[in-house]
């Protein structure tokens, strides 16, 4: 850390906790960056002359006479086209062995978009995965997480989505990512030859947890640079937001704040919203779409992290192992894309909304029939047909290894419906039945 002129330097630390230290200082600004013994830190509290700093890498080894240097500015990142294909840590320093990137220096975590300047999202993002495109259609400017247990293949699915979705730029924000997963993403992106449209900010489990707090802002400020300045369609991948929230809890705990539900800070909703609401469709074509991962513990979505996330994001995607077909599927019951109404039946074929609903309704009937079967009851003919339908539906449409276009998905759905049901059992609008019905 080279000091420059006009920087305030102090050498008397009064108070040190695991994550923070307090010094006597003057004229320091809220959220200003500083270096404590060369480690990045940020002002989180000012009380008269007492300034509390959150030291990102932790305070182990810091002495009461360590040097504290204030930079006079909030955390920043240098933005330019040279970021493409590069891997950075939470501070924006390269971790791929390359040279530091020079560019326009911008404060991270900048202001919000004026809601009236937002455009209504209207561009369909095809992923080829029918469980997503048919039932949970994604739209540019959307924010949506995978709710997944740690053992589920969410990283693979995310990488698939990232590489298949037609985005101009992909920004990966890794928080508490295992080194293996980091290398997995790196290899996938490399093999796909897509590295020049990917930028990564990675905090691995080797790094200090509090550093993670910078990752979303780094990734999203970079996304804004490309989406606003270069009118690009930017896709931001954030994984794992649960670990980000855990870091928030650590900090709030160290600052003696009263925890609310599940030991999370009371401001968790606002903290998460600040990140997710960066997803936007700009009027002049650029957009930021966020796909995140929130890992659950034992599938519990009532925990404060997934619960608050659900209220913020525009839907959620669940993966589930379907034992009937022996594959992982996108769960049609619990998954939801709230923005799908903006494109289905408009950008996609007119029958999309009703086909989607009918298929899911019949899949629910099949689930009821299965419960009956498990309880040892006789099944009606309708029950039997529902069960056969469910297995076809799961295999040909819900499995995550499906890769087809939206029109083909609808045709497949009509095929399956026609195979097992009578027209009056599907309960769709007559005009659609007249055009698309394939059964008897």
């Amino acid at each position: 850390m080279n000091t420059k002129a006009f920087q305030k330097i102090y050498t008397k630390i009064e108070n040190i906790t695991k994550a923070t230290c307090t010094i006597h200082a003057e004229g320091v600004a809220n959220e200003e960056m500083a270096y404590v013994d060369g480690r990045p830190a940020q002002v989180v509290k000012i009380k008269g002359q007492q300034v509390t700093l959150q030291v990102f890498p932790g305070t182990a080894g810091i002495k009461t006479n360590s040097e504290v240097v204030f930079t006079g500015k909030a955390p920043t990142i240098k933005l330019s086209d040279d970021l493409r294909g590069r891997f950075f840590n939470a501070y924006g320093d390269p971790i791929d062995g390359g040279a530091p990137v020079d560019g326009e220096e911008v404060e991270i975590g900048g202001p919000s978009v004026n809601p009236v300047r937002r455009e209504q999202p209207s561009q369909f993002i095809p992923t080829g995965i029918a469980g997503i495109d048919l039932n949970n259609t994604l739209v540019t400017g959307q924010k949506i997480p995978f709710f997944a247990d740690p053992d589920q293949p969410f990283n693979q699915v995310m990488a698939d989505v990232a590489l298949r979705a037609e985005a101009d730029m992909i920004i990966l924000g890794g928080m508490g990512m295992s080194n293996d997963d980091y290398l997995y993403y790196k290899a996938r992106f490399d093999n796909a030859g897509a590295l020049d449209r990917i930028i990564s900010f990675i905090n691995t489990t080797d790094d200090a947890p509090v550093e993670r707090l910078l990752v979303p802002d780094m990734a999203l400020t970079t996304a804004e640079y490309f989406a606003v300045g270069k009118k690009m369609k930017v896709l931001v991948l954030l994984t794992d937001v649960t670990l980000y929230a855990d870091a928030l809890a650590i900090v709030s705990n160290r600052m003696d704040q009263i925890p609310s539900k599940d030991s999370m800070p009371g401001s968790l909703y606002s903290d998460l919203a600040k990140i997710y609401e960066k997803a936007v469709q700009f009027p002049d074509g650029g957009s930021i779409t966020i796909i995140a991962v929130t890992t659950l513990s034992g599938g519990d979505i009532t925990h404060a992290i997934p619960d608050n996330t659900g209220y913020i994001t525009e839907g959620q995607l669940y993966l589930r192992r379907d034992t009937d077909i022996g594959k992982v599927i996108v769960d049609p019951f619990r998954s939801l894309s709230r923005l799908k109404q903006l494109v289905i039946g408009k950008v996609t074929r007119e029958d999309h909304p009703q086909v989607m609903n009918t298929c899911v309704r019949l899949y629910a009937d099949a689930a009821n029939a299965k419960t009956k079967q498990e309880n040892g009851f006789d099944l009606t003919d309708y029950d039997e047909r529902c069960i056969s339908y469910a297995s076809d539906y799961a295999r040909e449409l819900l499995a995550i290894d499906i890769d087809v276009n939206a029109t083909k998905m609808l045709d497949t759905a009509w095929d399956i419906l026609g195979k097992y049901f009578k027209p009056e059992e599907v309960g769709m609008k007559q005009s659609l039945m007249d055009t698309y019905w394939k059964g008897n």
Partner: protein
Amino acid sequence: MSTKGKVVGVVANMVTLKVDGPVGQNEICYIDLKGVKLMAEVIKITGDTVAVQVFESTRGLYVGCEATFEDRMLEVTLGPGMLTKIYDGLQNDLEKMEGVFLTRGEYTYPLNADQKWEFKPLVAGGDEVEAGTWIGEVLEGWLPHRIMVPFDLKGTAKITSIVAAGAYLSKDTMAVITTADGEEITLTMEIHWPVKKEIRAYKHKPRPFKLFETGVRTLDTLNPIAEGGTGFTPGPFGAGKTVLQHALAKNAEADIIVMVACGERANEVVEIFHEFPELIDPRTGRTLMERTVIIANTSNMPVAAREASVYTGMTIAEYYRSMGLKVLLLADSTSRWAQALREMSNRMEELPGQDAFPMDLSAIIANFYARAGFVELNNGSTGSITFLGAVSPAGGNLKEPVTEATQKAARCFYSLDQGRADSKRYPSIHPLDSYSKYAEYPEVMEYLNTRLQPNWSEMIVEMKDILLRGKEAKDQINILGDDSVPVEYHVIYNKAEVIDSSILQQDAFDSIDSSCPIERQQYMTNIVMDICGHSFDFSGYEEIGGYFRKINNVIRQMNYQLFQSDKFNELEKELQALVAEKKIDLTAAEKRADELLELAEERAGERVAQ
């Protein structure tokens, strides 16, 4: 000389100031950060140390920044030009802000400064006036917008002078009045009013008695809300709270809609901006936007402004109510408002209540809901605010402080059910868990029976009974199996399904089905209840499901057709033919015998229960 202060501490958006003069609780001040003025509200005073919540990001704020106090509370500017506007929580006109991103410290004028309004006086010199008296009107788009005497006038006053009819700016002097004490007050078209204080310029607030038509069947038919009533919709995420709020904003029969997006998704608000100017209100032929005011304080906007946003919305609604209008206020979601209260209480290091919410949460919520209502104004006309708040219970669990506090305050409870949402039965309002206290008001029952048909209330009770018995039958079928229960169980379950499929479920995205006028609801309810009243001839349970699915399908098709169009009538004939296939016409004697049997069974059941 206004009071000044200096920043001495900063934690997130709570700032402490040392002040040099008198300050008031909830007083507004501006903190000067290198030329940028940050608005803040006083929340706690200890000697000369004052804690304020800043309505903006506090990044860069440092010890020594100067603050200037305004000697007023947080207030809104009320006057013509609010319709079609999109405000933030502090009533800044978002359209007037430049750039794609919000700029800290930018505050915009909420009305139209340069627009001239065609003023028509309604009183003359010498007339006696009181708070809220309509002294004139201007045409705000389609609305005769009443220019009123400020609501804080005590007692009566006399008009000293009033301008002649003509075009004026909203800041121009319209009249001068002299109070009983001889004080002269100048009136413009604008009224400034502190948002946390109710506008009480009315004679009295009677109990609501009229049906407030929303066009949503499961509300109007099953659990109606009264005009001037309050209700809330708790539901886990994904249950359809926002879709329901939007459906209400589109279809409810109100003169004015005030929508508060309080800490919710920006894209949902964008949907309204884009749709409402296009959608036509069938009752008036004008676009929906022309009757709408939007307060958009989305979740990424500062927390303190979120807290203010619900009050801003309520105050604007009260202003229009004072003009004798029927206002619908929608707030999505009040849980975010409660969370804003929690964040602040937490920063002030107050002793927390349950789930770290402030202790007085329930009082604050009750107080807010109480501001809605049906009022009779001093001039004899009536106005109303019907208020529906969305609640987002943590973890979907209704046993949490915000839901519990709201349940005490609101009269209608519309519980959005995860199970219904999962099986795509929308709107997912649970028919049996939900309730409307108004349905039990004798005046509401009388109103419905007079307006619709004499046995209406009775019929709806019967409908709920069938739904309940259908649910019980379903449980039995699930436990015992299809063939181990009497065929009657399958029939009653399927009758409940007919009600569910044709009355409760409604397609919010279909141009026809999305809005169902009460007359149509009445017509369909009679058809459905007629079917439910029949006995049917089935040889075994196997044929029941299929038969009723056919019936449901025909009624669904009817719901998609224009009311009483040829196609609709054709489908109705088809339906009657279908019903005739299986129904049994009982003779009067058989019916009587059946009833006696049922009665006997019930008594037997009661004896067992005892």
